[in-house]
């Protein structure tokens, strides 16, 4: 158990490291990112971002020659100053040459100052150092400044605003899916082949096939416009979360219904169920305790993909129902190529999924002891 858990956690950490590294490489080489001239960023955004990412050297690359000649008296240059001020500097260098001194760049977003000495060091910093400082800032959950907010909003602030709403929708959807999918799956298994089972199978087939961009507008039209039970859009009360959660929940419930039914039918037709029944166990108990547990095994493995589907679907329903969740920040950011924001969401959601995967891996022996038992049995030759 302990070995299994530590293995899973080590693998999760490795995965997280791989994601962070991939992220770093992508942002370094992306066209329109801070390393390219294709897209011109506002200077304050660029300064704030570069500083946060440890890329001050890019900002100050034109100053490489200038900085060394700077004499040491105190002059402050505000990196958050208007573009004209910065562009007025010599040769694209944001520092005014000749004014000299212990030149300081004040970063707009947090008032932090970067000294000239540091900057000279930064100019000569190789890629590997940039990589290490980016890793360090990601490890401390510092995901940078969004491109599209004039350097004033960090990715973390946006995530902190959007995630609770998205999480509420997702949790409600998961609840609906579990409360609907598992009982209906057991009903289908108990009445396998009879009309309730066939009816449920048709519904589940429809539910598995319907994309959220179809079901969302349909529910909106039926239950908010035609029969105005729920608010049309926007985030106000818990009622405004119901339709978005139902959209995702119904789709997921269809998948869970199929899985529960398949697992339970598989069990009920097996020798264990016959043996349990022959010992006098009531059918209901066999179904609710033993068959359900048997059906729960593949479901635990399905948990991470299910959550991934919920995260994906939440973008759609948040757009359809106009909820200010994560998608509110993500979609606009993706269209405007606001890389740090998109990266932030990808990193946050990846981390969430990796944690869930690890959890599923660690919890598996509790639901299905065979997993561990199989590891002990030597492989037949």
């Amino acid at each position, binding site marked *: 158990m302990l070995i299994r858990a530590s293995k899973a956690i080590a693998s999760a950490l490795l995965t997280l490291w791989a994601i962070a590294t991939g992220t770093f490489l992508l942002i370094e080489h992306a066209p329109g990112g801070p390393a390219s001239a294709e897209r011109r960023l506002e200077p304050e955004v660029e300064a704030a971002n570069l500083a946060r990412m440890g890329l001050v050297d890019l900002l100050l690359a034109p100053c490489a020659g200038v900085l060394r000649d700077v004499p040491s008296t105190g002059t402050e240059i505000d990196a958050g100053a208007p573009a004209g001020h910065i562009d007025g500097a010599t040769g694209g260098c944001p520092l005014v040459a000749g004014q000299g001194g212990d030149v300081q760049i004040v970063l707009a977003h947090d008032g932090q100052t970067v000294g000239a000495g540091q900057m000279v060091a930064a100019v000569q910093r190789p890629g590997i150092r940039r990589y290490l400082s980016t890793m360090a800032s990601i490890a401390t959950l510092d995901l940078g400044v969004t491109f599209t907010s004039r350097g004033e909003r960090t990715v973390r602030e946006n995530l902190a605003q959007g995630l609770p709403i998205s999480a509420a929708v997702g949790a409600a959807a998961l609840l609906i899916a579990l409360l609907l999918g598992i009982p209906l799956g057991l009903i289908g298994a108990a009445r396998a082949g009879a009309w309730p089972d066939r009816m449920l199978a048709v519904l589940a087939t*429809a539910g598995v*096939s319907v994309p959220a*961009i*179809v079901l969302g507008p*349909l529910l*909106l039209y039926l239950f908010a416009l035609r029969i105005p039970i729920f608010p049309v859009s926007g985030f106000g009360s818990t009622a405004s979360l119901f339709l978005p959660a139902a959209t995702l929940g119904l789709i997921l419930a269809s998948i869970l219904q199929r899985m529960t039914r398949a697992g339970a039918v598989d069990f009920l037709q097996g020798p264990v169920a016959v043996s349990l029944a022959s010992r006098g166990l009531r059918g209901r108990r066999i179904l609710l305790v033993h068959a359900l547990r048997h059906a729960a095994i593949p479901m635990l493995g399905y948990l991470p993909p299910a959550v991934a589907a919920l995260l994906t679907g939440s973008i759609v329903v948040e757009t359809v129902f106009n909820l200010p969740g994560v998608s509110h920040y993500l979609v606009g950011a993706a269209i405007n*190529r606001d890389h740090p924001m*998109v990266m932030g969401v990808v990193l946050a959601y990846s981390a969430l999924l990796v944690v869930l995967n690890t959890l599923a891996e660690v919890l598996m022996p509790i639901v299905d002891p065979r997993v561990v038992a199989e590891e002990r049995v030597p492989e037949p030759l």
Partner: protein
Amino acid sequence: MNRSGRIVALVLLAALALMAVAGPWFAPAIAGFSPEEQHTAFPYSAPGFADVPEAHPSFDGRPDAFALLDPAGSGRLACSARNCPALEPVAAAARVLSRVLADAWQGGGADAMVATTALQAALAPWPAWLAVLRNGCPGAACALREVVDASRFLRLTPASLASMDVDGDGAVTQAEFQGAPMARPHLLGSDGLGRDAFVRLLAGLRLSLMIGALAALAAAAIGVAWGATAGLAGGWIGAAMMRVVDVLYGLPYVFLVILLISLVGPSTFNLLIAIACVQWLGMARTVRGLVATLRTAPWAEMARIQGCGPVRLAITHLIPNARRPILAWTTLLVPASIKDEAFLSFLGLGIQAPAASLGTLIADGAPRIAEYPWLVAAPAAVLFLLVLLIHEAQA
């Protein structure tokens, strides 16, 4: 799913695909509108609302300008003597006219001169055309271009249309004038720019199917190549390659697509690549497993002993033997790719205007769903049906 249900699904799917593929050819016959044609005077018209398509035949430097005189393209300008004898004089005159115009065209293209008298003689039974001719070509002779330009002018002036109203019922039918612009119904209404929803739906279905199929094929190719390499290499290389797949499998792949799109910018091609880049993982796993098993089979050992190299072994023996599961996986990738495309286009990260896919059509209609539900209903129903049918057909 039982066998008959599967066959029904396959037939319906084939019909849908045929509709999508043949759309450009039969849509003009049914709807008469082109996908990007805007009728801003009548935005958001309800299904059944009739409007005159712009695609009314006109001359743009091509010999098919005669389509104005011969909308059916049959070489006749009016009905035949058999099915409408009353119009036979008109038809005969029109044939003469068409010959005059065709001769002029062959003589000097669009700039060829046509004698007004010749035209007037041909057009004698056709008063409307005489009116048009007087408008567009007042002199003794005029260039073919001017004659046909006049035909376009004909469509635009109510007065010239009125002059063709032989029976005085306030409408010019095509019996009265073959080239008369006819209003056609918007079968599924029109959108905010007055574009025909039915024609755009066909175009959207075609694009969605195309992207679904191409992305699935590309993903399958990547997956087979990766999986086969990992399976053949074995050892730590194979394990490392599969570890990459495992890591990517654990990620929210749609967000990776969004990330890729955000990095390279949205376009149809980028969308295709991005979808293919995340859909190959399952295929890679399957193929690796198959290849790892098959390479130990006696016939594979035999091939190796006889000097078959690993690449040749994979291409000529292992992959062909794994074709059934590969094919099954590929068909699974199609609905997934279609869903991904619709999802991304819905968010504005996929297909860019003016091109249409099922996702963009739903996205365009969604904000006004309260007033104009049909704009969402049709593409949403088609998308649902498409995914459902593919699922059923392969079940």
